[in-house]
């Protein structure tokens, strides 16, 4: 993809690929403290308001060595990679650890990290995951308030409503910029590849937000719309915690597909929902947490009045995607539980669906390529038969 804004994207790419390097430089430059946060719903705005650098720990590219002796091989690759990062000192740049989500595999990794980084604060404030009970809002508010207290205490800073509101505005700004790019992609603009968009979202989880927002604005200003070609339009689905490997995204595009929408954590899911900027900032973060699961339902939450499959059908209709590729992180149980519902819904609407299982290491890319190519061939034949417009 040709575009002129190489520098901002390169800066984002460096942070996305080497978060530890970015954190070390940021700490050296600012004298500030950085915390490691974990997917999926940690309220980073609160840490930001405390003057901390909140970084969502990314799956890195290192092979898992010691991590396989700390968690079982049938834990997801991300949790084993986190354990490996802790065991090999790759989390040493972080001054503390904060987590808000109850995933049993993530909790396994959290306990490993706590054990191996003794002396550093590890706080788990568990956000209620039953989302539509009469008491959900109150309970989520208690947890958010706990985070305010804990992070205030950790940073030695009083997090006032005013500071928190400013942080919310900063984060909202970044999300709005990213959402605009995603909306343009849905509407037929292909100026950025799926890999580049992933870099933007991933780096937003790592970089100081003001800096990232400035880079985003520069990048948008330097780029111009590029009409989409006639490749098969793909909706990418799944991966709730870490990013799919860029080489997999490349294989999809090399095989004749173009990603027009997604519900990935490193994608539309993460940037889907803003917090209100006017009222109580804690209430705003609670509202954001609850609304996010309505905007893009997540199978890690329990909510009986929204469905991921319904959302997916609407998203496919809205973007004009021709096929759905589910990226299932091997051993991810929420995704495994929900897959049959997705399959049923997509089959009922005649939407082709391909399931690809991803792993930290040893992903059979060429096998995947063959399956993806076969799916795209079918989709193209289907176009001929149904005379579907190509863009």
């Amino acid at each position, binding site marked *: 993809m040709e575009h002129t804004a190489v520098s901002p994207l390169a800066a984002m790419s460096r942070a996305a690929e080497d978060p530890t390097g970015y954190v070390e430089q940021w700490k050296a430059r600012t004298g500030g403290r950085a915390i490691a946060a974990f997917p999926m719903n940690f309220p980073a705005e609160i840490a930001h308001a405390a003057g901390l650098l909140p970084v969502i720990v990314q799956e890195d590219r290192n092979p898992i060595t010691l991590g396989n002796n700390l968690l079982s091989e*049938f834990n997801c690759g991300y949790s084993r990679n986190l354990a490996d990062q802790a065991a090999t000192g790759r989390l040493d740049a972080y001054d503390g650890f904060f987590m808000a989500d109850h995933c*049993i*595999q993530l909790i396994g990794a959290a*306990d490993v990290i706590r054990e191996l980084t003794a002396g550093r604060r590890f706080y788990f404030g568990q956000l209620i995951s039953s989302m539509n009970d009469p*008491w959900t809002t109150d309970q989520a508010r208690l947890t958010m308030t706990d985070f305010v207290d804990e992070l205030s205490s950790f940073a030695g800073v009083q997090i006032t409503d005013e500071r928190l509101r400013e942080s919310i505005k900063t984060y909202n700004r970044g999300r709005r910029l990213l959402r605009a790019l995603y909306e343009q992609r849905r509407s037929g603009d292909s100026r950025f590849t799926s890999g580049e968009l992933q870099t933007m979202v991933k780096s937003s989880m790592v970089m100081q937000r003001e800096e990232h927002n400035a880079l985003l604005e520069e990048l948008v200003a330097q780029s111009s719309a590029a009409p989409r070609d006639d490749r098969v339009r793909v909706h990418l689905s799944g991966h709730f915690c870490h990013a799919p490997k860029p080489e997999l995204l490349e294989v999809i595009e090399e095989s004749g597909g173009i990603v027009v929408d997604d519900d990935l954590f490193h994608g539309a899911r993460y940037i889907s929902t803003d917090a209100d900027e006017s009222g109580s900032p804690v209430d705003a973060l609670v509202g954001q947490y609850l609304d996010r699961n309505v905007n893009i339902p997540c199978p*890690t939450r329990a909510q009986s009045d929204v469905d991921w499959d319904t959302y997916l059908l609407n998203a496919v209709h809205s973007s004009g995607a021709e096929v759905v590729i589910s990226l299932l992180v*091997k051993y991810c149980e929420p995704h495994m539980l929900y897959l049959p519902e997705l399959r049923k819904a997509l089959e009922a609407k005649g939407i082709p669906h391909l399931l690809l299982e991803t792993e930290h290491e040893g992903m059979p890319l060429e096998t995947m390529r063959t399956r993806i190519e076969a799916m795209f061939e079918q989709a193209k034949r289907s176009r001929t038969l149904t005379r579907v417009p190509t863009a």
Partner: protein
Amino acid sequence: MASLLEDKSNRLRMTGRGGELVGAYWDELFTARERGAQVVWYNGHALNPLFQAAGISWCHGEAFSARLAAQHLEGPAQLAGEEYGYVNELCSYSRTHLGCAVLTNDFGESETGIVDTVDQRELASRLPEPDFFVNGYQGCSTGQQWDQMSYRILGKKVPIFTLSLPYMFGSKPDAGYLVGEEWETATDYVVDQLEKLIEFLEVQTGRPFDHDKLGEIMSYIKAASQLRREAMALCMAKPAPATYWDWVASIAHINFMPAEQRLIDYFQGVKDEVADRLASGVAGVADERYRLYFDGIMNWNKLGWLARKFADADAAVICGRYTHQNFWQEPQLIDPENPLRGLAQHYLLCSNSQGFKTLKQAMTKDCDDYGIDGVIFHASRTCRAYTNHQHLLARVAENQLGIPTAFFEGDIADAAFYKDEILETRLAALLETIDAKRARN
């Protein structure tokens, strides 16, 4: 050890008789519809005292899956789940139970081509369709989502209540076993959740909840639990008069049987038999030479097999996380006059809902109390809640307690993951290590 020529396990006679109680419970559940009783499907913690007090028949999803696996009847349900689309790396309890939900929903003939129609009818007719769901999971996030899927499979028509329970990670500085701000706050919160559940039950049954009945039920459970713990404590003796497998065989009773005098009688019988054995020098394993601690959830497909396998190697499995750190294990917390607090605290105490700090302390205490020589870890393939901390616990056993450890692979309810040869060689290696350590000392 390749073939088992002699059964050296000496299981308690009482647990065999206890099977009648369990059978009667299931028969009663299976005929609930004929009796006009309401049925709840629930998962997670032992919420059955509340259902019993409300006059509802209850089916514990994990227990039903475990029962099928223990009777080697899990195949058709798991096959139905697989056909529906569940990947075999998913929790096999949930796959089995969801497979039953698929069959119950009468997808049968149209959507399942593999599951034999006789099996379909059998499973579907045996497990009565629920009037409502109650989810009470805490440690395992998968458990909460499992009921969300059951809810969807049954067409989103069956009311569902989700009890929200906090994982006891131990974030606060004073956090500890039965102590600290987190413990007190969490207890208050869960009591509040239980009150909300009671309101839900009142709506579903159309009757006021019988609080007096709940107090009476909890008094039975308290007495039964005290007897169970006392009987367990008798097994600190060498040789141990009963083994882990006996406590496994009594899980159904303490975990979801109706709480009544028969429950107390059962555990009184268990305790009496253990005491008699102790008095007469009868051991749970004929030639006890090794005393092991079992970490992990049970492999229900292999209960009898594993009991014989370990006994064949003169290894008495004395205690374990699953049996000894669960199931009303702190009966002094139960106050029949104020039963909700004791219920709440036992839900919080479930060992797969505890962070490593507490688990380490509990394993260390059990290994010390029971004179343990080695720890065997059951790496249950599809139960991450029970395998999460095993490698950390192994490090504690090896490095801090000086106790050798070994892992073997299996699963809770999917026999395909059990590898007998792996257990064979690793158990032999563990016992040799214990021998070598003894020789050195």
